[in-house]
């Protein structure tokens, strides 16, 4: 798997209302990599993700997935939104099965895969529950299972834990890390939480707003065998402070 984002710019609106939202974004993502985009609100993170998902088209530049230009949404790029994305009339299992059945897979295959991916996210017992009967964290795990069930080449996560409270957030971060380790998935995570980015991603891009652009890239080499320990370890805290300082100065220079 090779995702290549090359010199992508995006503007919305026409004429005088035209607004440049992304300017000259370039990066690459390869199999098994976990990458994060961090930036303050309005720096265009979601727009980057929507461009990769094919939900928007770039104004300039190209996006290629395994050599093929991205022109429309497709199941090779799974997406998880911040909220409101489970189908409220379907049970957890039916939500996970949704993509498979849209693709017209056989009944037996759907059943088997649904059970497998519900199990992967630790929700085998919740198969028959409706989304409103699930906690926020469980809902996001179902959304992740649903995106994984169609076996995308890359998983796009747009602030998947942004709406959760702190404790659940931390356990979901550990969950996502374990999932990445066990399944070897390729992920692009959007967040405005530096700690979350450093904890999970091997590469972190820092984005600045107006227009959105990547201003700094860190490759994170930390021992991730115990996330809870890592969170409070000295090198982690120092790195976090350094990046937080950078983000602050970005915001400060705009005031």
């Amino acid at each position, binding site marked *: 798997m090779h995702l290549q984002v090359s010199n992508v710019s995006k503007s919305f609106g026409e004429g005088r209302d035209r607004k440049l939202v992304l300017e000259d974004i370039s990066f690459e993502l390869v199999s098994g990599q976990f990458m994060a985009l961090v930036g303050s609100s309005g720096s265009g993170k979601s727009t980057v993700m929507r461009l990769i998902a*094919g939900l928007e088209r770039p104004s300039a530049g190209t996006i290629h997935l395994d050599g093929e230009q991205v022109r429309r949404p497709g*199941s090779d790029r799974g*997406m998880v939104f911040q909220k409101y*994305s489970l189908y409220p009339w379907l049970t957890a299992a039916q939500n996970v099965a949704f993509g498979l059945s849209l693709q017209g897979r056989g009944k037996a295959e759907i059943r088997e895969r649904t059970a497998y991916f519900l199990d992967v996210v630790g929700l085998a017992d919740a198969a028959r529950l409706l989304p*409103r009967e699930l906690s926020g964290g469980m809902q996001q795990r179902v959304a992740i299972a*649903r995106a994984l069930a169609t076996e995308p080449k890359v998983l*796009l996560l747009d602030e998947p834990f942004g709406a959760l409270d702190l404790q659940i957030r931390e356990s979901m971060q550990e969950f996502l890390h374990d999932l990445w380790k066990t399944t070897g998935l390729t992920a692009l995570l959007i967040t405005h939480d530096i700690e979350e980015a450093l904890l999970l991603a091997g590469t972190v891009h820092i984005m600045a707003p107006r227009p959105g652009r990547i201003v700094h890239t860190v490759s994170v080499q930390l021992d991730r065998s115990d996330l809870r320990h890592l969170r409070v370890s000295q090198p982690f805290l120092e790195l976090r402070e350094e990046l937080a300082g950078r983000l602050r100065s970005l915001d400060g220079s705009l005031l």
Partner: protein
Amino acid sequence: MVRSPALRRFLHHPWVLGVLGILMVFVVWFLTTSSGMVDKLFLPGPGAVWQAGTDQFQQGILVKDAIASIQRVFLGFVISAGLALPIGIAMGTNLTICYLLEPLMGLIRYMPAPAFIPLLIIYFGLEELPKVMLIFIGTFFFNTLMIMDAVKFVPSELVETALTLGGRGLPILTRVVAPFIAPQVLDTYRINMASAWNLVIVAELVAANEGLGKRISLAQRFLRTDEIFVGLIVIGLIGLIIDLGFRFLMRRACSWAN
């Protein structure tokens, strides 16, 4: 006042309170008429109305009238609801269609449907067609615009998720949009069914050979206030049953929405 908690809970049950409210009116009605203060010709007592009702029932008039009215409503409303669904969805999903039709429908919607009756009689005579048309005109635009609104409120995340799962075109409509709007569509139908039911009576008051509205206007001619009351009560009851039917359907089919 009420000591026993069980009794209190019983008295606060919505059904009990509802029946109590209706009973109150009956008691007042009964007391005023039995006191002899008002002329029976103006306000017949509950007993007289019941008598008139059972008479009509035994003669078969009541059932025949009810069936005639229900048929008209049913026909007109099924056509209205059936056309409003695809057109409303099209308007809600396609901006061009929306811009094209919304002002037109918004305008017609504010023309009172009963005002179309003279025109419909001139065009289609006194048979069934003008009455069915009236119900169609009176409900179609409301149905369509309300369904359009429901479609516009489908969260974009739900549609976009389906797109990223490999969905496209018609399956998105049938498997994402349709189930999401189903509760609102049922509720739209329930609300507009009430005006359909009102309109059929209005149409029958003006011109019809049979029907509950027709029976009321006949009763007026012969000063049979008891029969007018029978008509009013039966119309109300049938409307209530239809309403409860929609609510029941909604609870069964869209339990996720409650």
